[in-house]
């Protein structure tokens, strides 16, 4: 059985990737998870320098989901390269570095630093972080902004570049297309949905930051739709995510059109869910006589009446 999938020039040994921000820098999980068995690890979003993040409370649960407003607390790219990367490298992990910038120059500079380091396998551009302003809206909220960041980063590295798209837009497929045209090797989606929870007794937001990002099973049906929509719009691989808890959910994304998937919130619930995910995925493939997982990608069967309209 062939579980390999290709993300640009990067071959993953299986389609299961730990999602950024939900698996620390990877090393935190080394005692519990055999890191080299994962398809990849998208490490926590990094800026050029260290960041403090938001005040707690930073998370709150909601029905079948959670909000987070961590505020991208992080050690910055320099310390990451010095303190974490060698460890990941020596453990045989496939490392996807999730990067954030306040300006295009910051993205470019981080990329340069990572391109020179040993053990970076791909770069995921977090352009869905609402802290970053570009003409009043974030880069990721517009096709133009997305295109600019991807082009700039593209010009300084041959590493696979994976812009990570926000779901908080009218036309995610249009943004995926812009990313492809600007030279992205793949797109990953979805980041979290901008959301809010209120403590009605105090009449204050439940999160110190006011708003936060919704993740977890609650968002899965929207994320699956967006993956399908993007798969109809681009030819580069799609890395799908949003609420994956089980192999069934992994399959839903792959069938919808994702070449690989990321698992975020589920790590909190079950830090070593990987062996079971992989075993259940294999069981499905063998039961359905599918030799290569790549052959399952985008195999959703639609009838003529199944068009883009609802209710």
């Amino acid at each position, binding site marked *: 059985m062939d579980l390999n999938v290709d993300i640009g020039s990067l071959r993953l040994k299986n389609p299961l990737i730990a999602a950024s921000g*939900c698996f620390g820098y990877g090393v935190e999980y080394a005692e519990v998870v055999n890191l080299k068995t994962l398809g990849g690890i998208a490490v926590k979003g990094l800026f050029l320098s260290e960041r403090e993040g938001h005040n*707690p409370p930073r998370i709150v649960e909601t029905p079948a989901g959670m909000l987070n407003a961590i505020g991208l607390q992080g050690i910055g790219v320099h310390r990451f390269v010095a303190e974490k990367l060698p460890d990941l490298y020596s453990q045989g992990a496939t490392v996807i570095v999730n990067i954030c910038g306040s300006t295009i120059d910051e993205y470019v500079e981080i990329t340069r630093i990572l391109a020179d380091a040993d053990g970076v396998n791909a770069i995921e551009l977090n352009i869905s972080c609402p802290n970053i302003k570009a003409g009043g809206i974030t880069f990721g909220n517009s096709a133009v902004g997305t295109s600019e960041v991807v082009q700039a980063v593209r010009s300084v590295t041959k590493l696979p570049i994976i812009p990570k798209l926000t779901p908080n837009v009218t036309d995610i497929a249009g943004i995926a297309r812009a990313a492809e045209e600007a030279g992205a090797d793949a797109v990953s989606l979805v980041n979290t949905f901008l959301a809010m929870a209120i403590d009605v007794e105090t009449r204050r937001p439940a999160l110190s930051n006011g708003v936060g990002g919704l993740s977890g099973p609650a968002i899965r049906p929207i994320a699956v739709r967006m993956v399908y929509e993007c798969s109809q719009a681009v030819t580069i691989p799609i890395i799908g995510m949003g609420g994956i808890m089980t192999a069934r959910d992994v399959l839903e994304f792959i069938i919808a059109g994702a070449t690989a998937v990321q698992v975020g919130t589920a790590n909190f619930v*079950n830090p070593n869910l990987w062996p079971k995910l992989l075993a259940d995925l294999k069981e499905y493939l063998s039961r359905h006589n599918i030799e290569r997982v790549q052959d399952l990608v985008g195999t959703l069967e639609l009838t003529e009446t199944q068009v883009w309209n609802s209710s």
Partner: protein
Amino acid sequence: MPVDVDARVVSNIRLSDDYNVVCLDAPALALGAQPGQFVMIKPVTGFEPLLRRPFSIFEVLPTSNSAPTGFSLLNKRVGIGTEILYSVEVDQEIRCLGPLGVPFTLVGPPQEAWIVAGGVGLAPFLTLASALQQSGTPTTLFYGGRRSADLFYLDAFTQLGVELVLATEDGSRGESGLVTAPLERALTASVVSAKPTLYACGPTPMMRTVAGLAAAHGRPCQVSLEPVMGCGMGGCYSCVVPVCNSEDEPTHFVRACLEGPVFDSQTITWNRL
């Protein structure tokens, strides 16, 4: 090294309308658990609630010198997860990840240990008290609750040779008021002779007061903090607390699940907690 196991419920002892003790069969997890460490438990399969909940390891079972068979939790009902835990039935299985976190640092004789517990903040201290007893460290428990019926396991501590100083808000047992009052008097009276190290767990205001008293009297103090925790593994950065290790360093957030839950009270920036 933490393990993630399905632990069978051996017993569920209701202590009151709000408190219970759940004994769990989990030898692999109990083995090597140290005082102050915690477990992340999933009270229910499914998504209601979605995330695990952190709990101190209350007792290691059995407490005799044979190998441990499991551990217990002291649980206080405050919301959905603790409500489920209050109602668990024998033979149910509960997913438990642990032991996690930095344990207490033990002191030994001739130093004394003064433990300060408020309410369910008692939870990390039964294992601490038995470890202290093994080294023969004189130990006092300052223990406060709302009312007499909210003070538990007094006999267990007494049997360990722990001296008890009790306080209740309604005065129904021990001193009337907060437990930090007798603590302050004791510190003022005996600090020179006893050289106590303080250990505190309870509501944040209580811990802040204890930390302040410790600083004022020049005594070391370890606090066990209880921030909201999403993962317990260092993965999510939800559990941060503001610390400052030296004067030339700004306050910054560290993960309580990895660098805590036990902290030197002096490193905590209390006014930002």
